[in-house]
């Protein structure tokens, strides 16, 4: 069972390493979106620190969406998805492995870039630290829930736009608690409550999303 999970992970990571352009695009997009806001709203440090957490979180959600439409689409196109679904292992594990690989490929780099962008938004070190924790808890949620959307829209024309419309509302709780945690620490009310709720949402997504995505994948392949 764990061997299958590892095989899926290693396969997706190898493929990502062979096609660096794909994942670099998502990271550049993150940096671009976050950098447009200071240009648009003006350079006052207080204003930037006020909107910073929200902007960074929205940019992270959009960057994650950008890559999600390809989560299953490439494998579907070349037929390897059918082979994986027809393997003796449960489809849930396949979805879990692919979501985990998506997080490692697209989520971890966001975590590494976010502090730099935090400085750009004049966030304090404490706020940047909480931003990191909230992204660490939040980005796996984006990958897990995104897997559901990617499986549902597999093989549809214009699936990318539909995916965005389907999944963005589901991202709202993660966005509220994630940005709220950073706001909380800046306002002096503490971040624990928001981070706990974010953690709870992660556990909930981990328990439910792979099953829904696996069922959706089987329907899409029919």
């Amino acid at each position: 069972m764990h061997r299958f999970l590892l095989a899926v992970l290693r396969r997706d990571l190898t493929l990502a390493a062979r096609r660096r352009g794909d994942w670099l695009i998502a990271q550049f997009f993150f940096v671009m979106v976050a950098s447009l806001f200071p240009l648009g709203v003006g350079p006052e440090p207080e204003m930037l620190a006020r909107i910073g957490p929200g902007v960074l979180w929205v940019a992270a959600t959009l960057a994650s969406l950008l890559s999600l439409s390809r989560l299953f689409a490439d494998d579907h196109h070349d037929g390897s998805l059918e082979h994986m679904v027809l393997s003796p292992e449960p489809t849930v594990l396949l979805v879990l492995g692919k979501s985990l690989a998506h997080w490692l490929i697209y989520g971890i780099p966001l975590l590494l870039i976010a502090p730099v962008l935090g400085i750009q938004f004049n966030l304090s070190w404490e706020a940047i630290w909480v931003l990191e924790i909230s992204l660490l808890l939040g980005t796996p949620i984006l990958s897990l829930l995104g897997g559901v959307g990617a499986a549902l829209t597999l093989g549809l024309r214009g699936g990318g736009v539909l995916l965005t419309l389907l999944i963005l509302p589901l991202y709202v709780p993660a966005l509220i608690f994630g940005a709220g945690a950073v706001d909380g620490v800046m306002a002096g009310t503490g971040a624990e409550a928001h981070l706990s709720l974010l953690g709870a949402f992660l556990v909930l997504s981990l328990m439910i999303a792979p099953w829904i995505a696996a069922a959706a994948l089987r329907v899409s392949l029919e």
Partner: protein
Amino acid sequence: MSDPSLSVHDLACARGDRLLFKNMNFTLNAGALLLVQGGNGQGKTSLLRLLTGLSSPEEGEVHWRGQPIRKQREAYHAEMIYLGHANGVKDDLNPVENLRFADGLQGREFDAARGVATLNKLGLSRCLDLPCRVLSFGQRRRVALAALLLAGATLWILDEPLTGLDVHAVALMEGLIRDHLKGGGMVVATTHQALNLEGVTVQRLLVGNVAIPELA
């Protein structure tokens, strides 16, 4: 465990509103080949996908070793391998890596020496370290066939396995199918090409109502 057998009971298949076939019954025993024939769009691929369990029938059941496949998905998939129109070969990986991941996804340990030997047997010895992107259509098909051989499954379900293969590869494939059947394996295949399968039990199944000239 009982002898491997694949049987289909009162199977009906519909795509959208259109009924492709109904009341289909057949049994396939160890060592036999089922050649599914029919014109384009008559439901050959749909039938094969029903047999793999990728799609579920409108009516009826597919049984493996006497049990419905939907009740023993994992055990059935461990003994069955499907090769569809798409090869399932990743363009960014070389043939050996493709086989390694195919094995890993089936939950098996990859035997590199055996993998390379199989690729050599299929005439890919000069392409082992090239990404599959640069290989020709027929060569990629051969990589997919190597994965099929390495899987060691009892039941092969092959959708147009000979597409894009040259004369030598077709002859090789015929030999492989014969060997597999002699070893007690089973094959379900669709093809529009004539196959030389002497000494093999061949069952023919006509899907749809369009009469086609006798093959082979």
